[in-house]
């Protein structure tokens, strides 16, 4: 029975051609003339379906690490309200998935279209990026800007000059064939 299970599960994964990660990396960066703030998250889960081009990412908000402990607390408590909205996510499609040859090593530019949900607010977005195929893994890269006001994240006037209105988000993540 175990043998049957193994055979059938390998058959499934071979056919489905999904790439997955549970330790994806997402960084955000806020730059103002007063202060630059960068935070790192290494606990992002993501999956890319090579056949359909479907993409999904889940970003646990509490996993963003800050250099300043108090800032991390404020980020969760006051801005992202992570008890109420514990995750941000992206659901979408690589619109030019046909251009990517997952069987051949190389870097391919991608265009992602889908829905980005942050702080409980969902927006339609188009994100630029690239996919680097190397053997059984792909590296997904994307850099885009997020306006805090678009997602209902309130910044009080005392912090206005320290937190950028547009936050740069960088995704740089290796996904392995599942």
């Amino acid at each position: 029975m175990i043998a049957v299970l193994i055979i059938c599960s390998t058959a499934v994964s071979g056919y489905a051609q999904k790439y997955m990660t549970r330790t994806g990396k997402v960084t955000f960066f806020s730059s103002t003339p007063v202060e630059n703030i960068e935070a790192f998250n290494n606990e992002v889960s993501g999956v890319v379906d090579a056949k359909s081009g479907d993409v999904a990412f889940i970003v646990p908000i509490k996993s963003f690490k800050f250099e300043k402990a108090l800032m991390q607390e404020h980020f969760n408590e006051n801005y992202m309200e992570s008890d109420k909205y514990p995750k941000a996510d992206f659901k979408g499609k690589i619109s030019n998935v046909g251009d990517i040859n997952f069987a051949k090593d190389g870097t391919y530019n991608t265009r992602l279209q889908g829905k980005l949900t942050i702080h409980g607010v969902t927006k339609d977005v188009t994100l630029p990026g690239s996919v680097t195929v190397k053997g059984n893994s792909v590296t997904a890269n994307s850099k885009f800007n997020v306006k805090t006001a678009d997602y209902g994240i309130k910044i009080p006037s005392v912090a206005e000059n320290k937190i950028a209105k547009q936050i740069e988000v960088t995704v740089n993540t290796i996904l392995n064939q599942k």
Partner: protein
Amino acid sequence: MHIKPIILSSIFLFTASFYANAQVEDTAEGNDDLMAMLESESAKPVREYTTATFKTTRIANGHSIENTAKGVLDFRINHRFGLLHSGVKDFFGLDGATTRIGFDYGITDWLMIGMGRSSFMKEYDGFAKVRLLRQRDGGGMPFSLSYVGAISVQTMDKPAYIPDSVEYYFSNRLAYVNQLLIARKFSNAFSLQLMPTHVHYNLVNFKNEPNDVVALGIGGRVKLSNRISLTAEWYYQIEGTKRFVEGQPNVMTKNPLTIGFDIETGGHVFQLLFSNSTAISERNLVGQTVNDWGDGDIHFGFNISRVFTVVKPKGFENSRNKIW
């Protein structure tokens, strides 16, 4: 041999259903399935430590369950003014203030130390706070438990009640505090804490005055907004362990009640408070409060906390963090 066919058929059923599942996953389009796949993979319950039970390391006067984070230095200034009803002559108490200036530091995420100097009785104090248990979100540990141990030295001249012929030893100046903090964050807006407390005074005024005060404290926080909370704390001294007001063998000390507001603005936390305690350290707060709310003997005070990251956490060596 009736068992075998059952086993075989159940294996068949199981594998068949597995195939059926696999089929669904293969043919289904759209990324809702991908999302479901991610969520099922991360479905194991998240059991992170509960954070921000209180805004800062003090509820108002006394300690809260919070610790200063590892590598973080917290510079604290505490001010307690005179009695509010002292009138215009003393500008409602603002003329006569006691101050404590102190530094707290997080050695690890579970151990912090601190020291300070209070103008009241010219007191130096030092403490250590150790996390023993931590509440977790999503089940597991339902509350947090910490221990606070403190020692203090009062460096005033020899008290008037000691005759000239009797020597005033250094050990007479000392007092010790043992305290457990038991806290639970019930919701984002509401936290509650119990503080069984023991204070030992090496020297007391009267023969029949206890050297050991045992008290049970209760404190809490209600968040009014993301940046403002209402706090309260009260220590109940167990009958029979109460000290006397200095020089007055018939007058007992009072139970300290403090009501305050936490106001947070970026790197600072301000705590504004009203209390019947003049002093700030546990030694005086818990066992030597002499004013009474009932008589309107209330002090206005504030705490200011400013944190500095002294030791950068790992992984930030090449970060773009910068302050101009």
